[in-house]
């Protein structure tokens, strides 16, 4: 199994030049790409820079805190997620200028989840060999 195929609850595609992302999650680090030429930071990571078309990128770790911009509690999920519901999805914006989409830590009571709340992104291990990340309260 390719490294990236282990990313998320369910994988749809496993081949990418960004598969290091999943390898770092395994090691407990959440990383993304920065273009060495124009310094543009991207999330999701991409090893081909759309700003200057360079493929010379470096991986940087995201450790700062961000704020929740939008969220939903999913009560009816798509195929492969039926038994997982309810789960909460959201987008968190970080001061470094990126936004990250993902699941919000199920330990946070739903009633406490509010747009604007401070969260940080934390790598997690799912059942078996799968890796992912979620957003935890600071």
């Amino acid at each position, binding site marked *: 199994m390719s490294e990236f195929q282990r990313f998320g609850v369910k994988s749809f595609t496993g081949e990418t030049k960004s598969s290091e992302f999943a390898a770092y999650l395994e090691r407990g680090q959440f990383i993304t790409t920065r273009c060495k030429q124009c310094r543009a930071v991207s999330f999701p990571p991409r090893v081909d820079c759309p700003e200057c078309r360079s493929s010379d990128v470096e991986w940087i770790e995201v450790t700062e805190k961000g704020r929740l911009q939008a969220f939903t509690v999913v009560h009816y999920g*798509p195929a492969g997620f039926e038994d997982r519901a309810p789960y909460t*999805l959201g987008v968190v914006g970080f001061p470094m200028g990126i936004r990250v989409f993902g699941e919000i830590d199920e330990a946070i009571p739903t009633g406490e989840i509010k747009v604007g709340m401070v969260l940080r992104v934390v790598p997690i291990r799912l059942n078996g060999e799968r890796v992912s990340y979620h957003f935890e309260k600071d």
Partner: protein
Amino acid sequence: MEREVAIVGAGQTPFARRCGISISEMCFGAFCNAMEGLNLKTEDIDASVVCSATEYDKQRSPAAVICEYLGFAGKPTFCVESLCSSGSSGLRTAYSLIKAGLHDVVAVVGFQKMSEMSSAEAAERMGRSGDVMWESPFGLSMPAAFAMFASAHMAKYGTTEEQMASVRVKSSRCASFNKEAVFQKEITIGEVMNSAVIVSPLKLLDCCANADGAGVILLANKDRAGSITDKPVWIHGLGASASSCTLSRRATFSTIPCSWPAAKDAYEMAGVGPEDIDVAEVHDCFTITEIINYEDLGFAKPGEGVRLIEAGQTYPDGRIPVNPDGGILSKGHPIGATGISQIRTIVRQLRGECGKTQVHGARIGLVQNLGGPGIYAFITILGRD
């Protein structure tokens, strides 16, 4: 105002949860409906554009079998896809073919038979609505994306669930006069509020439903239009834009980023502004989407969309009537046919054929058709004169 390309005919099948006939038969029904009363023969149609979100089709490249069944054999045809806005991208394609002088009369055929797919197959496709590499692995679906937009709009502007529900109330009122809609029963705010939560804050009745249906629009250049019909409706403005599919690459969630750039282009091409629109069809796949659309199209200022619905200004007798046919929420959503049905409603409004939901004296109408979780936006401005 431009009078180069006209819509000379517009038809559709009634939308249904399950139509019980083939895709070609559905399209034939819509084609006959569009041809009614026209001085036009099938052999006068030079080309066709077939619109479908083909991931929902059993038939590969469905343009071929549909053209055969409609009698277009031997004529050029194109299959156009942009998810829920496939119909409007088809219209833009057909307009371009005519404007370029390649063809004089072009048929745009939009359809989807959502019932052709098992619920498991539909759920599988729902799970691939967004970026499959980075976002689908978390269980993102189309409703979940729009629910997130709702949460952002609520946080930014104080929009409430009751205000969203009032969009469905208007939709159901209008659809009670529309015999082609899947849902024709009037719905109260309480019924919306008490329906099951699907993706918070959206409940079952905040969401549209899959449907089967087909629609056909017939376009002709200015030299032919007058001989085909005495009620041509002119394409005055077109606009199209796209936002990022990956939600995390969007800067804001309280608006559909591609809507305004598309609307601005269409307004400029038509030489009109939002205040000149007499009647509109907007993409109400969810109740929140209609409120956001009011703002993105310039019908209301950002954050003030709810005022329009609360004051009744988007009802058929209001200042800016929106979705007088009941919209997607009540008509149902046969993906590839949806845009065609929206355009047909505005064509009929401009011809004065809408009975109890007719907007009196409507001369300029606007259609906004979105694709996916606000990935694509197509705006079409039509005029009677």
